[in-house]
């Protein structure tokens, strides 16, 4: 007699019920947004303020995976922690083997296959998170989404979690008609996300979260990560060429961006 220990089994209609449930958990999670720029990727999330007594500083919403990769999630934070730990291990093992951190594609494929395993392995449930991964491929920025099923996509800009549809519509509108803040540019020019600056993208993300998510948007309720090239000979970078770096914005930096939009 053999037993089936997998919790994720097919329904009669050909769907995996647990995957649907995991996606429902994702849709309940706080909204996360990502935008790919010309030389940058910005990812951010709106931290839910369930209680004013919670110290938001203790939560890690935007995680640094390695020098050139960062990620953010919507869904269950404990599940995200597990994925972050696995992602960091994958990145470090890759570096040990190849002498450099993995390109985003490689890390995404490996994380996605971890997610897939958790839909088929016995005795486990799928991860209750969708994640956005910011990284570089071949020197060009990429933004990926990985779902609980192990499905992954590459986006120019996207949103996950609560109100994701509304937020994506907002981003679509912005993509076609983002008017540059700089007066030197011709206002009529249609600016696609690929041509915007890092500040533009951060602005768009904050506006999207302001417009589409619940609750007030302040430096305490936002977590933003930026992937870009840090210039040579800065931040302990001894290289003579710009190297990719992923950083979380400090509260004062977020405050500055909020002030620009006000």
């Amino acid at each position, binding site marked *: 007699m053999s037993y089936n220990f997998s919790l994720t089994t097919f329904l009669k209609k050909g769907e995996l019920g647990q995957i649907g449930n995991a996606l429902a958990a994702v849709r309940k999670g706080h909204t996360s947004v990502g935008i790919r720029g010309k030389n940058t990727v910005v990812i951010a999330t709106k931290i839910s303020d369930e209680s004013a007594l919670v110290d938001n500083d203790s939560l890690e919403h935007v995680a640094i995976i390695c020098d050139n990769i960062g990620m953010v999630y919507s869904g269950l934070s404990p599940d995200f922690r597990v994925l972050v730990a696995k992602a960091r291990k994958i990145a470090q093992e890759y570096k*040990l*083997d*190849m*002498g*450099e951190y993995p*390109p985003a594609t490689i890390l995404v*494929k490996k994380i996605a296959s971890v997610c897939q395993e958790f839909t088929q392995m016995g005795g486990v449930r799928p991860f209750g998170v969708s994640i956005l991964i910011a990284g570089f491929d071949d020197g060009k920025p990429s933004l990926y989404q990985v779902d609980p099923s192990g499905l992954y996509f590459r986006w120019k800009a996207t949103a996950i979690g609560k109100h994701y549809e509304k937020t994506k519509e907002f981003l679509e509108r912005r993509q076609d008609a983002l008017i540059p803040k700089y007066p030197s540019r011709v206002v009529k020019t249609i600016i696609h996300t690929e041509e915007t600056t890092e500040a533009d993208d951060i602005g768009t993300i904050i506006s999207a979260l302001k417009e589409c998510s619940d609750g007030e948007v302040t430096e305490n309720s936002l977590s933003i990560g930026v992937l870009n090239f840090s210039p040579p000979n800065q931040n302990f970078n001894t290289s003579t060429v710009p190297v990719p770096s992923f950083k979380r914005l400090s509260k004062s930096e977020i405050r500055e961006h909020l002030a620009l939009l006000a």
Partner: protein
Amino acid sequence: MSITQYNGSAIVAMTGKNCVVIGCDKRLGQQALTVDMNFEKVFRVKDKLYVGLPGLATDVQTLHDRIRYRVNMYDLEEERAIQPDNLAHMISNMLYQKRFGPYFCEPIIAGLTEKDEPYIMGMDLIGCLSSAPDFIVGGTASDNLYGMCEALWEPDLGPDDLFRSASQALLNAVDRDAMSGWGAVVHVITPEKTETYHLQGRQD
């Protein structure tokens, strides 16, 4: 006698201006007895990336197989050409994994990077990397090769001059080494193409 000297070998890699060469002798022996006169020890990894494996012939073949396996998997997974520095790290790890029962082989990597910059790297049999701006030598004739390369190498040689220097270094080094020789193969790697030359050496 060390086991690394059982079959005999001589390998040299040299850098030039936007080019590299890597060459080896063709002898396979069992100590003083010559078994084969067409045993090459430099292998193509990619069009602009070669690896030389001086040392015990059985390990040369096994390592070549394992490198080919890893590089083929890399090609499929990453859908891009492996770079010389990544290959060096990969081989170095492969060797260190057998730290206490090593492959008796000291690989030499030669190729052009993505930006067509010359790259050469050597390592010992447990994978300790050693880089040099000019040349890297290995095998039973390595002492002779050091001497020849010190005398013949100049900075910024073009492909033709570099080929001549490396070939002369190799042929003259193996003539003073009983364990290697019997002709040589030299690969000249330039951004446009890689050319392979088979050299006739002393057949004794």
